[in-house]
Every structure is written in C-alpha cells, then in structure tokens.
C-alpha cells in the first residue's frame, strides 16, 4: 500500500487507475509474438531437460543395475521399496531439516550483507567482490577448508570454543552435529549468490522513494520494513524458490565431506540416490530414479506453494 501510494504520489497521479492499453483478450499478434519469443529457449530446454526427465521416469519403473542390459519393467516395485527402506525416512528428515535451516539462513545473511554493501563506502568494490568470490571457489576447496575449521582436535572453531569456555564438540564426527556443520558450510557458499541478487534488486529501488519516506518522518527501520522489503519481495521470492530447489537437491558438499555419515546423519535424498546408483551400495539405478521422482514431486509441490503465496505477498511494480 505504502509503496503504491508513494509511487503514485511521485508520478502525480491518482493511484487506482485502470491499466491503459491492455485489451481484454490477447490479440493474435500477441500470441504469435509470445510463441516466437519463447521458442528458441523452450526447444533447447525441452530437448535437453524435459526429455531426459521423462526418460528417467520410465527408468524408475524398471529394474536397472546399469551393468547388465536386462532392464525388465517391474511396475511400482521400486516405489514400494521406498516404503520399506529404513534409510529413506532419515534421508527425507535430513533433507527437510537442512532446507528449513539453509534457505532462511542464506537469505538473512545475504540480505544483511547486501544492505551493508549498498552504499558508497571506501573499498566497497572489495567487499562486494569478496562476497561474489564465495560462489567462485570450487566445492572441493570449500569442503576441505570447512573440514579443517571444524576438526574436533585441530580446528579453529573448537579452539575458539575453548577460549570462550564452551565445551569441545565433535562436529563432523557427531551424528547430531554433522548436518549443522554442512548447513553452515553451504550458507557460506551461497551467501555470495544471495548478495548478488539482493544487491541488484536494491540498486533498482529508486532513492526518491526512501528519501520521500525519510522526509515524511519515517524511521530507518520503518522505511526498511515498509518500503524496502516489499520492493525486494520479487527478489526474495526468486531466492526462496531457487534456494529451496537447490537445498532439496543437496549433493556436492555431502559427497565431498561426510559421504552421508557419520551413520547416515548427513544422508540427504540426492546423496542417497547417488549411493544407490553409483556409490557401490547397489548399482540400483531403477530405485535411484524412483527416489528422484519422489523428490521431484516434493519439489514441485513446495515450489507451487511458494509461487501461490508469492502471488499474495509479492509486489511487482506494474
């Protein structure tokens, strides 16, 4: 509300005008333009993205161990196997817990840093480049550094704990703590991305708005809450959706640091399905495909909910 009022006031217009120039039904030329514009990207994405997905769906109904050419159809037995698999429940829980911590965590850290960096300070380019740089580092280097930082005997974190009087923790050796270490590791890795997105969005907010609010006597926090945050909502929606999609498919960091351990405490769904397919646990590709589809359904549902909620809460400026 405040946003629209402010915008309208700036434009010197009453703010409940009907959008001019838009016919009730799309003209044929709009249809044609729409299809023409989307075709190049859509064709590529369908050929290389959708077709493999449909193909893997077919594989999820087969018994397929990747070595022998014998891949008979077994109906729903792969899916039924999931019901009897004791590890799947753990994998699902870990995936959900991880996502619930990682997504808000990254967004908050990213937002905070982006706000801090959205100003003309000396060295601001250095700070920004440092944030982006966390995206550039290879996952193996990231994993190695964090394994070291959180080493129970030789790591810096336990050393700091020691200085402050906290008890020493086992971190990656502990079934209760290992997942949280991975959360921290990945938040670190994705902070740069969140900063980039939020920074671009912040740069798009006209200063005239925040200045107008300040003139009107609004405090900085109120301005932030009532003007900046709503204007950032498209970026926030994008981040929530994209980070969630990625979090639910966590793999690399687990593969490179804990390999699902200790004792499956960091096993998440994609890592588990990789283990089933290639990790030497089974070479059971049919089962892995079934798990992937199960995850796929979860992701679709979650994303759809996010978009739905987004339609209510997100302000686009048109």
């Amino acid at each position, binding site marked *: 509300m405040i946003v629209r009022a402010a915008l309208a006031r700036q434009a010197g217009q009453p703010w409940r005008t009907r959008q001019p120039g838009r016919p009730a039904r799309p003209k044929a030329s709009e249809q044609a333009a729409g299809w023409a514009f989307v075709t190049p990207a859509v064709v590529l994405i369908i050929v290389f993205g959708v077709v493999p997905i449909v193909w893997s769906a077919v594989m999820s109904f087969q018994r397929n161990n990747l*070595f022998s050419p014998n891949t008979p159809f077994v109906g729903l037995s792969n899916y039924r196997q999931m019901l009897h698999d004791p590890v799947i429940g753990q994998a699902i829980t870990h995936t959900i817990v991880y996502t619930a911590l990682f997504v808000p965590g990254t967004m908050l850290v990213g937002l905070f840093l982006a706000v801090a960096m959205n100003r003309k300070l000396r060295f601001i380019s250095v700070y920004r480049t440092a944030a982006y740089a966390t995206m550039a580092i290879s996952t193996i280097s990231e994993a190695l550094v964090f394994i070291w930082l959180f080493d129970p005997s030789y790591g810096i974190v336990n050393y700091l704990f020691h200085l402050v009087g906290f008890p020493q923790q086992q971190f990656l050796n502990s079934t209760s703590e290992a997942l949280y270490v991975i959360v921290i590791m990945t938040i670190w890795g994705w902070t740069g991305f969140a900063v980039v997105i939020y920074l671009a969005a912040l740069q798009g907010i006209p200063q005239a708005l925040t200045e107008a609010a300040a003139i009107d006597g609004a405090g900085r926090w109120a301005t932030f809450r009532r003007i900046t945050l709503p204007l950032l909502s498209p970026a926030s929606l994008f981040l929530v959706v994209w980070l969630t999609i990625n979090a639910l498919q966590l793999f690399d960091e687990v593969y490179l640091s804990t390999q699902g351990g200790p004792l499956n405490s960091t096993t998440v769904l994609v890592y588990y399905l990789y283990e089933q397919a290639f990790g030497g646990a089974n070479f059971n590709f049919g089962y892995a495909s079934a798990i992937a589809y199960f995850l796929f359904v979860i992701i679709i549902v979650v994303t759809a909910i996010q978009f739905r909620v987004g339609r209510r809460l997100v302000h686009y400026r048109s």
Partner: protein
Amino acid sequence: MRGHWLSAAAASALLACGLAACGTGTPNSTAGGLQIWEGYTGAEAKAFTHLLAVWNKAHPSEKVSYLYVNNDDSLPKLLTAVKGGSQPDIAYVYGSWAPNVAQIPQVVNLTKVVQQPGVDWSDFWVGERDVATVKGEVIGIPALVDNLAVVYNKSLFAAAGLPAPGPDWTWNQFVADAKKLTIPAKKQFGTAYVTPGTEDTVWHWEALLWEAGGQILNSTNTKAAFDSQAGLESLNTLRTMAVTDKSMYLDPSDSEYANLFNSGKIGMLVTGPWDLSGFPNVKYGVQIMPSFPGSSGGHQTISGPDNWVIFNNGSKRVAAAEKFLIWMTATPQATYFSLHTGDLPIRQSVENSPQFLQKMDQALPGVDTFVSNLGNVKQARPQLPTYPKVSTILGQMIVSVLLGKTQPRAALASAAQQVNQALASGSSS
C-alpha cells in the same frame, strides 16, 4: 548502443561455435587407434605415458591413446558410456567393482587369453588373480596390487621410549604402544582410523578379522560368518583404542589422517604404499601388521588389486587391446613401472630383477616391506555383486562401534542379520 553490442555478441557467438567445431577432433569412429581410460597422476602418469610411447613407436598400426579419468569418478562415466554405446577399448576399473562390471555384456572374457603361453598367468599374485576372476571367468588383467601394513613415526617412538615394532609383534603391543603415544596436551594420537563408513573403513577391519582367524562370509557366500569370536576380538581391539583409550584419531574425511601423520601428530598408521610419498617430513618405518597370538590367521594382510578391463568394440580392436595389455603387464614393463613409481610389482617375477628391492627402497624408503608383505596376502574379499551392499552394512557397524554408539557384540549380531537379508534377497536389486 546496447543493440549493437548484442547483435555483435550474437554474431561472435555463432562464429566461435563454428571455429570451435572446426578446431576440435574427429568423431570417435577412427579405425585402429585404441583408447584407454586411466587415472594415473604424478609419477605413475609419467611412467605410463613413457611405456605408451614405447608401444606406439613399435606398433604404429595399433596406436593407443589415453584419456585421464579420475578413478573415483570413472564409474559414472564408464556406465554412461556403456549405456550410450561409446565405451573405450580398455579401462582401469577398481577391483571391488569387478563382480558387477562382469555383467556388462561388452566386457571381454579373457579366460582363454590368459592361459596362452607367454602370459604366465600364475606369475600374478593370487590376490590379483582372485579379483580378476568372477564366477570362473577372467574379466580383467591385473593393473595394480597393494596391501596394508603399519607405517610408524620413528621420532615419536623414540620420544616415548618405545622400541620400534618387530615383525612378530601382536595387537596387544599395538594397542599399548598407541596408548603410550597419545599425548592429549600435544594433541598427539597413537593411531588413526578412517570413518566415512565406505569400503575404506571396512577393509582395514577385514584384515584384522582375517588375522583373528575369522571369515567375512561362509564358504558358499550365502551367510555372514563375521559374527564370531574372531569378529568380536577384532572389533574389540579397535574399540579399545577408539573409545576406551582414546588413542585413535577418527577421520571422517578420509584425507586428513595422512597430513596429520606427516605433521608428526600420529604415531602409527595402518595404510598402504601409496601414502608413503606423502610423508616427506617424517622419519617413518614400515612393519607388517601385528597378529593375534594363538590365532590361525597369523600375520595376514589384505590387498586391493585393480584391473584393466577390455571392452568389445570389434574383434580387431579387441585383439589389439589384448596384445597391448599382455605387453604392458609383462615382466620388463612391470619392472620399469614399479621402479619408477614405487607401486608394488604386479608379478612375482619382477622381484627377480637385480637389486630390485634395493632400488625400490632407495626411491621410496620402506616400500620393500610392502613388497615382501605381498606374500601375506592369502585371500580376497568375496567376489559377489552384492558385496557393495555388505560393505555398507559393515561400514555402519564399524563406525557405530568406533563412535561408542553400540557394543561390539550387539553390533555384530545386528550387522549379521542385515547381511543375511541382503544376501538372501540376492543379486542386483
């Protein structure tokens, strides 16, 4: 100006695409040239490419080119290639995958080939031959052999007033030494164990199991046999160090332990010859693994051989591949490779080369103990397609005991039950 920029960029993209296409290699259908996928790095890569060059010069119509594929990543790449019909001619395959790789229809059966005169199949170590053979069929030619022994830090032993381990030592002595070498104030540990729960965790323990006189599975590979007194004894040994004495550093990353040893923070490691080159800062000694007194197992060790596997891309190429591999693994080439890399000799006759052991030891101190330890390899892990599943169960069991979460007896019983289930539900599902 942006319009110009975009159209210029689009044009240059097309141009780049065209240029790139022109500049790159020819399609995969070249006759005659064989392709081999391997994961050699450093000294191994140098030695291998040298031997390749020698072969290529002598056999210009049967040239072999190589593609580096990291061994850990090679399975997804290999399986995808097989499914897509673009498999290489030869690939380096981990021995633990052999029972499953044998099911690939394009894998060439080499049973008759290795019986030919001039190959001298029995010259390869028994552990290697066992791993290259699945259900009586030979599906690979040995590429690598290794084994586990104890590498210890001489300075730390001296500082603790301990005598260096002798070849007759026992696990009790190992445990006692580890305890003495553990100094919490210095963050120094007596020994270390890798705990990612993968096969690396498992095979270290299996060596102890065998030494205690135990077996992993029964003789028909239908039931678990590790749930025995031997299993208990071996697991308890590890547990004493990890949980009671806290003399064992647990490494879930499977990579820190080596650097820790090199930094003088660990007294003894049970590891293989590949780690020796990573210890430049430590005066180390090598000794065979201790034994359990009174057990039938004696001083045994475990070996993890790997294979060269040939894929059928046409009879001419198969014949050339066989010829190449037989030459590559023949005694003169194997000797060259060992001497230049420090890798253990894949053939027994290599040791007959003059002053072989001395030369090896000069290049890589301590490796001669590993070479003679090859004689202590008496058996191999079960060659089953379901072994990977068994391995996962055993891995969880060991980690659970080492973390102090379960008692060995209960852990063994539970694991045995799971293994029996896995074996019963059979092959590849």
